[in-house]
């Protein structure tokens, strides 16, 4: 059944059009960058964009940063929202079920096909943008290592984490790091050598509340900080590993969206409804993440740790948020798939 679902997915023209469009956006950006050589100033624009002029081999990371906020989740919501509702709307669901295909098995196969789509899409974006990047910018020495540990304080995943700004060598000096209590939670973080410690984060630093920085803001600032890179060149193997880690993390980040859309897909017979529902959930999550008043729930929001993939490009790789992100996504997938299963296996298929 898994194979059948994969065949359905990849024999569908729409799948390839979607993947193609997702690859196209970074290519367009790359063409503009290459023809004008005007990089966004550090601290602005998507992560990594200013670094790619130095080395095209960093472009996959920049491309992922470009598609991650909107295009990738939209594509995943479309595909996952269509899984069950699309079959139901087209009438093929009843023929599958009387074949017979068990409802649980069908649901699992659909989940697998969503995962396969995300993997294929992320791989296609990374692969195509690597080719584009190296072609347009050359494969100069990638200096991808971000020298700053993200300046996050306030309620972290377990509440204990105030990743003290003190550990960030290249941190903006004004980082309101909540007392700088270099908590025992992450004592192992050495201050990375920051020769070129750039002045980063200044745009955001003043706007934050002086005592406690909203996590999102810190996250955004951390993302910004990525735009200014320095450090020792990465070996190709090191870069490849970091990139693979980031790709894997982004893939998993998308599974939460996929699970929401898949669950809604079992609820409604309209794939559009399921897709829009999932996107509405994401937008709600994004709004709440930026809302100080919602700080009590932010650690559990599906988009909260989306940008943590950037931590793969720090030296050393900063794992705390990555770990938290994985746990959050896993929780969403498990809970929503259980809900989808409970709903789908007891539902009248009257469509």
């Amino acid at each position, binding site marked *: *059944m898994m*194979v*059948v679902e994969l*065949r*359905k997915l990849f*024999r*569908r*023209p729409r799948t390839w059009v979607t993947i193609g469009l997702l690859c196209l956006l970074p290519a367009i950006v790359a063409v503009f960058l290459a023809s004008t050589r005007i990089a966004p100033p550090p601290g602005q624009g998507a992560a990594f964009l200013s670094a790619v002029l130095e080395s095209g081999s960093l472009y996959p990371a920049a491309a992922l940063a470009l598609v991650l906020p909107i295009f990738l989740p939209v594509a995943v919501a479309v595909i996952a929202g269509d899984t069950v509702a699309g079959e139901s709307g*087209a*009438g*093929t669901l*009843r*023929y*599958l*079920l*009387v*074949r*017979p*295909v*068990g409802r649980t098995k069908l649901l699992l196969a659909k989940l697998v096909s969503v995962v396969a789509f995300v993997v294929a899409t992320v791989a296609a974006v990374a692969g195509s943008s690597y080719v584009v990047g190296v072609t347009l910018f050359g494969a100069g020495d990638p200096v991808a290592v971000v020298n700053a540990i993200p300046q996050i304080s306030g309620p972290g995943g377990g509440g204990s984490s105030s990743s003290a700004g003190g550990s960030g060598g290249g941190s903006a000096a004004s980082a309101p790091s909540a007392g700088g209590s270099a908590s025992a939670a992450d004592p192992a973080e050495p201050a990375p050598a920051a020769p070129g410690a750039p002045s980063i984060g200044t745009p955001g630093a003043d706007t934050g509340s002086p005592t406690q920085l909203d996590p999102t803001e810190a996250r955004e600032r951390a993302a910004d900080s990525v735009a200014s890179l320095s450090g020792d060149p990465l070996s190709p193997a090191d870069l490849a590993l970091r990139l693979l880690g980031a790709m894997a993390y982004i893939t998993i980040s998308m599974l939460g969206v996929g699970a929401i859309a898949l669950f809604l897909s079992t609820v409604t017979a309209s794939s559009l409804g399921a897709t829009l529902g999932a996107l509405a959930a994401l937008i709600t999550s994004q709004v709440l993440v930026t809302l100080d008043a919602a700080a009590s729930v932010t650690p559990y929001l599906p988009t909260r740790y989306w940008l943590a993939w950037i931590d793969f490009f720090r030296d050393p790789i900063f794992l705390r948020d990555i770990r938290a992100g994985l746990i959050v996504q896993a929780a969403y997938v498990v809970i929503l798939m259980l809900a989808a299963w409970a709903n789908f296996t*007891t539902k*009248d*298929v*009257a469509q």
Partner: protein
Amino acid sequence: MTNLGERSDGNGGGARRSTAGTGVRTPSEPVPAQRARPLPGPPVATPLVIETRGLTKRYGTRAAVDDVDLHVAEGDRYGFLGPNGSGKTTMVRMLLGLVFATRGEIRVLGHEVPREVHQVLPRIGAMVEGPAAYGHLSGRANLDLLDASGPGPRAGRRRRVGEAMERVGLGGVDRRPVRTYSLGMRQRLGLAGALLSRPDLLILDEPTNGLDPHGIREIRELLIELNHEGTTVFLSSHLLAEIEALCTRVGVVDRGRLVLEEPLDAVRRRTGRVVLTTPDADRAAAALGGALVDRTPEGALIVTPADGDGAAGLARHLVGAGVRIDALEPETVSLEDVVVRITGPGSDRA
């Protein structure tokens, strides 16, 4: 309400056929089981392939299927007839485990549905409420996917698909995608899907929708052929002619209730009266006297012949009276008469 189509009972001439009242229940009366057997039934000569007990499906307060006891025996060609919206499709979906009953029991091929539905579904070929396929794939690719979805082995898939396509008359179809198919072709493809697993039981919901008369006849012949090979056919339709031409047993459903379940021959029995078509209607009426029961709007006369005399004696009497006779035939109750009389208007009528 019903699409009458052509009549196949040979009792043409526009004679209106009245019905005798026996054997037909009004919708309000409870329906006694025709061949009530205990549920799990002991092995009998013609085991029941489908049996339901008190099957009910409610949507809110409305009962789509209301306390239905259905009995389909092995080898039957069972016609499940009813106006639109009378619960036929809901019934079919419950038999297949797609819709869960509110109350009642279902046994199909000896297994309880929906609990053991996965043991029976591989032996069932089904078409529910129109065909469905992936429009961007060819018919063959669709069947291939369908076959691969099921529990059957990979080996012989190409042959199975080819045979099914051949059987429904799509053997020569090319690789064009299903979205370019006509409705008739889609219908055939749906039927091919139902035949893929060489089922013991075919459950078909309105299988000839969208087919032209030629196609309808072809499908009918195919179903009869399959039935002779041992497949039990359960067919739901609102097309009287289709059921009359194909089925050996008929169940009539009205507003969710099964109001009749009998062999078709028993439904279409003779009334003992004779329908007379004549150009000399008035003279005939005079000659017949009290034997004349009724006159149809088309001018035919309905006559009760004297006991033991039959149509032949009637003919002699009429000819003796100088009445010319175009046709003289025994009156039968048509399925249509029965259905129209015992069912209300379709629920799609406002």
